[in-house]
Each structure stands twice: as C-alpha cells, then as structure tokens.
C-alpha cells in the first residue's frame, strides 16, 4: 500500500513537471551567459507592466542587468532619432512602432541580428507579423524574401471586436459576423445617450487611418497598387474603398456618440470600461484595461471576436506592432546583450509567462497552449484567427506622409466636411503628389464621381 502511494506520488510529480507551461521557475528559460548592462528604449503602453515583469524575471534568472527607459509614444521616436542620428551608444535595444521601422531600416540605424551573431536563428514558431522585422535593402521593402532579420515583434497588435456578452445575450443576439449584424444589434441593444451600441475611433490622424484600414482590406481595397514591386499607382479612390468608408461612417453615426470625428483610443476605452459602449473596435492590447477591477466597471463581461466583415467581404486585419530592434551604433557589449535578451524572450517559457502577465505572445505554440482554454485568456482565439489574414500597410518610406493625408481626409469625411468620394479623391491626388516628388513610378486611378 505504501509502495503504491509512493509510486502514485512519483508519477503525479513527473506529470506536473512535464505539463505544458508548468516549468520550473528556477531554471532559466534560456542560457544566455553573462552580458553587459543593457538599456532599452520602450513606450509607456498598456502592455508595459507585463513586459517589465518579464524583464525582472530575466534579470533574476540570468543575473544580467536591464534598464528600461520608458517614454510616451512620440517621445520614443524622438529619443530613438536623437540617439541614432548622433551615432548611438545610449540604447542597445530600440522599440520601434511599425511605422518607424522603415525610416530606421532605410537609414541604416539598426543592426541585422546575424551581423551580431551569424548563428542566430529565429524560432519557427515566432509569428513574423507581415515580415515587419525583415528588410530587403535592394527592394526597399520589408520582406523575408532576400531580406535581413532586423528585429522581431515584441507586441503584435491587431484590432478585434469587443462586445458585452450580457447585453447581446439579453437581446438574444450572437456576436456579429458582418457590419450589417452590428447595425442591427445597435438598434436592439443601445439606449443612447445612456449606452451606445458600438463605438469606432475616428479622430483625425493615426486613429481613423488605422481603424478604417481594417475595413478597407475587408473589401480587398488598397492605397497603392504593388509597392513591393515598385508600382506606386494610387488605388485609394476606388469604389470598394468608397463603400468601406461609407459603411464606416454609417456604423459610427448610427451606433456611436454624436461626436465620432473626435473619438480617440482613450475615449473608446473609457466608454467601454464604464459600460457606456456595448461594442467597440479596439486593439487587443487594451484587453488588460477591461479585466482590471481598478480600471473597469465591466470586468468579466466582455469577450472578443475577429472584426465583422462586409457582406461578401473577406476577413482582414491590419497589424500595428512594436518591433524589438538593436541599435547599430550601440557598443558591442550592448548589442550582444540585446541579442541575448532576444534569445531568452523568444523562448516558449518566456512567451508563456508574458501572456500570463498580460502581454500578447508572439509564438503560435503559446497561442495554442492551455492558456487558450482559460477563460482569462479568451481573447487568444480571436487573435489567432485575425492573425491568419492580417497584413502590414504603409510599408514604404513615404508612409508617415500618407498616414497624415489619410488621417485628415478620412476624418473630414466622417465629420461631413467632405463627401466620402471627394475625401478619397483629394487624398489620392495628394498621395500621388508625394510619390511623384520622391521619384516613384506612380499614377492615379479614375476619380470617383462626386
């Protein structure tokens, strides 16, 4: 009897140790050796606490020192530019928003990983997020096809559709699959001004540009024809894009507050967290806000699904990711240290811990792990689904200028200053002018009837 009990305990212990994710806390996730102190330039974001915890774990496991220089969004770019333009040396690792990567890659300011360690290999389980971590200097394009590995995604954002499970259940509705479903649900569940059926972000600038582009790709729309292969013919002012914009405006106006043109990400999060907005299009990285009882009045009441699509449309998503890159001008010690952290961070165990602490893991095996079955991580399925068809947009050096143009003209369409056709026509002409001034092979499609 005693022997059987001992055997059972031994087997149970072995099973516990072998279970996915239940690794020993004492064993380092990867052996990286002693490294020089590393300074990272990072943004103040909702996922930063999760990343900071992971950094502490790295320090505890390896004895290496990491300092995080935390800055607001725009401040990260300013500091990155100041550092790299003056030859570098302050930071070993630079966290770059996807829009900034092209400027830094093209400028030659970040070091390819294999220049630091020729033996470095990216684990195959790590998502590439539209190849935003690769740079083909000849094509001037982010692609793994002939491109060098310049970074990887430390936080990969896509937008998903947040909805109140209690509100939809009470109305006998399933989570929406199409934008027509959203419009129908708004009419049933909303009681404005106490509650809004759905909220979209349409403020001028990056807000509306990023949000509307999700709608654009769902109708196979585009801004330019084939930039990867050098064809910068502007395709923005197409009937498909007009249809996307018209429906975007319709949903925002019929379902949301009366000031759609000034709603930013903070406003959307605030409206959802206070229970005023019953559905919303928001980045997945905001999830932790809604599950924190100190910040949310709707803890446990939200779920997410991939974004609805237009009738006859295709699933699509636009990636907005933060990329971990290594500054070319950093000292040899900092570069090796940055690469060592990368190797540690990209392990299954580190990504699992990251997800548990509120981050978004970048490994497919973690997204398919036991966490996906845990109600606390119920977002994983929608995220994995969306990532199957998500793409990068504005992947060229003129991207920031194109974003400014789209951010203004789309906003003007939402607030009624311009019709949707005129907004797209004007934006198309302006974007064409930008490409023409930069010597790109470009053209413009026929104007939409205004």
């Amino acid at each position, binding site marked *: 009897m005693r022997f059987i009990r001992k055997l059972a305990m031994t087997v149970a212990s072995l099973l516990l140790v072998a279970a996915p994710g239940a690794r020993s806390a004492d064993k380092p996730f990867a052996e990286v050796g002693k490294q020089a102190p590393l300074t990272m330039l990072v943004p103040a974001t909702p996922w930063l606490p999760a990343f900071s915890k992971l950094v502490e774990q790295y320090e505890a496991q390896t004895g290496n020192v990491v300092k995080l220089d935390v800055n607001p969004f*725009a401040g990260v*770019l*300013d500091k990155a530019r100041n550092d*790299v*333009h003056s030859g570098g040396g302050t930071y070993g690792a630079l966290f770059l928003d996807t829009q900034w990567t092209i*400027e830094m890659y*093209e*400028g*030659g*300011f970040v070091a390819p990983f294999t220049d630091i360690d020729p033996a470095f290999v990216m684990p195959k389980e790590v998502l590439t997020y539209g190849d935003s971590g690769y740079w083909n200097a000849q094509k001037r394009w982010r692609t793994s096809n002939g491109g060098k590995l310049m970074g990887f995604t430390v936080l990969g954002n896509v937008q998903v559709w947040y909805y109140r499970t209690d509100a939809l259940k009470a109305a006998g509705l399933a989570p929406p699959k199409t934008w027509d479903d959203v419009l129908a649900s708004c009419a049933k569940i909303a009681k404005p*001004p106490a509650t809004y059926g759905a909220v979209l972000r349409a*403020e*001028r*600038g990056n807000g509306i540009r990023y949000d509307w582009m999700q709608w654009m790709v769902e109708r196979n729309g585009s801004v330019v024809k084939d930039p990867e292969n050098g064809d910068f013919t502007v395709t923005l002012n197409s009937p498909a894009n007009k249809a996307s914009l018209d429906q975007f405006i319709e949903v925002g106006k019929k379902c949301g*507050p*009366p*000031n*759609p*043109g*000034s*709603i*930013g990400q903070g*406003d959307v999060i*605030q*409206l959802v967290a*206070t229970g*005023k907005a019953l559905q919303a299009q928001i980045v997945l990285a905001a999830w932790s806000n809604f599950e924190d009882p100190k910040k949310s009045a709707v803890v446990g009441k939200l779920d997410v699904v991939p974004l609805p699509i237009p009738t006859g449309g295709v699933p699509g998503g636009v990636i907005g990711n933060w990329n971990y890159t290594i500054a*070319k*001008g950093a000292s040899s010690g900092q570069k090796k240290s940055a690469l060592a952290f990368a190797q540690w961070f990209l392990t299954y165990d580190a990504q699992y811990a990251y997800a548990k602490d509120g981050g978004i893991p970048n490994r497919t095996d973690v997204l398919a792990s036991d966490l996906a079955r845990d109600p606390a991580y119920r977002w994983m399925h929608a995220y994995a689904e969306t990532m199957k068809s998500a793409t990068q947009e504005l992947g060229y050096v003129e991207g*920031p*200028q194109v974003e*400014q143009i789209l951010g*203004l003209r789309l*906003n*003007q369409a*939402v*607030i009624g*200053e311009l019709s949707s056709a005129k907004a797209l026509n*004007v934006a198309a002409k*302006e974007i064409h*002018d930008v490409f023409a*001034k930069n010597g790109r092979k470009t053209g413009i499609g026929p104007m939409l009837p205004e």
Partner: protein
Amino acid sequence: MSLRDPRGDGVFSATFKYWSVAPAVLVLAALTVLPALALLRMSVSTITFSEGHEHWALTPARNFAALFTDPGLAATVVNTLLFVIVAVAIEMVVGLALALLVGGLARGKGLMRTLLIVPILVPPVAIGNMFKLMYNYDFGLFNQILGALGLPAVSWLGSTSLALWSIVLVDVWHWVPFVFLILFAAVEALPIDVMEAAHVDGANRWQMLRRIKLPLLMPAIVVALVFRAILAFKAFDEVYLLTGGGPGTSSELVSLHLYRVFFEQNQLGYGALLSVLTIVVVLSMLAAGRRVVVGAGAA
C-alpha cells in the same frame, strides 16, 4: 591714475569695453546665431538618411514648392490668426480689468494676486488633460452642468465650429494671470499725485480711466500685448492635447502643423523652412511692438 582708466590715456577703457563683453557675445553666438544659421541651411535643403549617415542636398525650389502647395497650411494660418486675435484680446481686457480691480482694493491685494496667478503655475500638460476631461462629451463637467440645467450636451472638442473656441477658452484661463501680473505691477506704479490732481480737477471714474490711467499704462499694455501675441502665435500644448488639430483642420495651428511636418512626416528641410518663416513673423511682431512702445514713450 583712476581705477577706470589705469593707463590714463583712454585706450584701456576703449578696448576694455569690447573684450569684456566678448565672452557673452561668443556664448550668444554659439547658442543662437549658429543654430539659426544651421536652421537656415536646413530650410533650403533636403536631408535623407542612409547607411547610418545623413545626406544633404541643396533644394530651395523644392522646399518653397512644398510651402506653396501644402494643402493644410492656409487653414492653419487662418486658424492661428483668429486664435491670436481673439485669445489675446480677451486676455488683455480681462487681465486689465482684474489689474485695475485688484489695484483698487484697500485690503487683500496680496491674497488676490496669489490666487489669480495659480493658472500659470499649472503645467501645460496638466491643463490640457484637465480640460480634456472637463470637455468630454459623455463624462465631462461642462456637459454635466448643462445636463443639470436641462440643456443638451455640447460637443466642445468634436464640433468644427466650437473646437477652436474651446481651445481659446483654455488659453484665456491659462494666460490671463500673466497679463494681470504685468499690468498689476504697472497699476501699482501709477503716480498717486497725478490721480489725486485729476480727482481734485473733477475727473469722474471713466475720465480717470480713459484720460489718465490708460495712457500711463500704455507701455505696460503694449509689453503685455506683444508678449502674449508672440506666445499665442506659438501655442502648441493646448491644441496638441485637446484636439490634435481636429476635427478636420478646424483647430490646427501653425506650431502643430510644423510639428507634424518636422517630427511626424520627417520632412526636415520643409519643416525648417516653416520654422524660419515662423521666426520671421515673430520678429516682425516684436519690431512692431517696439515701435509702438517707443512711440508711446515719446508721446
């Protein structure tokens, strides 16, 4: 031999005054003239980066072409002029009224002065966030007050017709104390004997204000006006935090436009050109103000 001229031949004092200010002049040149020259050079160049280095190309025509074809610039110039004229006018009137009111108090001047300058002590970021919350359509204090009075909510920052004026209100709240401080000091320095003489001569309050106080306060008024106009022309924090220039272009000011061109679009040459033009406008305002002050002094 005097201490001022130890050699007694006048040469020491003639050269001394030049080399004694030379260090200050050199520092001034290094900190202002050199950067200004670098900015001028940037304004006629296109700067690109590759292989870790910057590459300059002289392209004045391209930068000026960008200036004349910038679709957003006209609206920002109009918005900025409206903002400067309206905000500064209100600040001057309210600041002067407060200065005269507080100056006429028998007691409590110190306390009133301290209370009235609180807004300029608050950091601009805090002001922006504070008013953004108060202007919030769903939760903001202003709409809650309107709701309590039975009035409909107002989209203070989301309406193209209201966004700029909502920012003007914030600017007025922030900068009236600045005008008040300058004018209050001038009010306190008004000669009492002149006031008394006017009173003895039978001048009423309106005549005292119009014929005595205002003319005597004019140099201070012009200084406050010029300072405020220059600062208002360069206003950035409030518009960046409250509306980001939207909705549409209804609240975009020159400084924000410049920020977008330089930092967000990374068009360094064109951004530098806009900066140079902004400096030219500000210097013109300074020169005009100086002429008015000198003229007022002569009168």
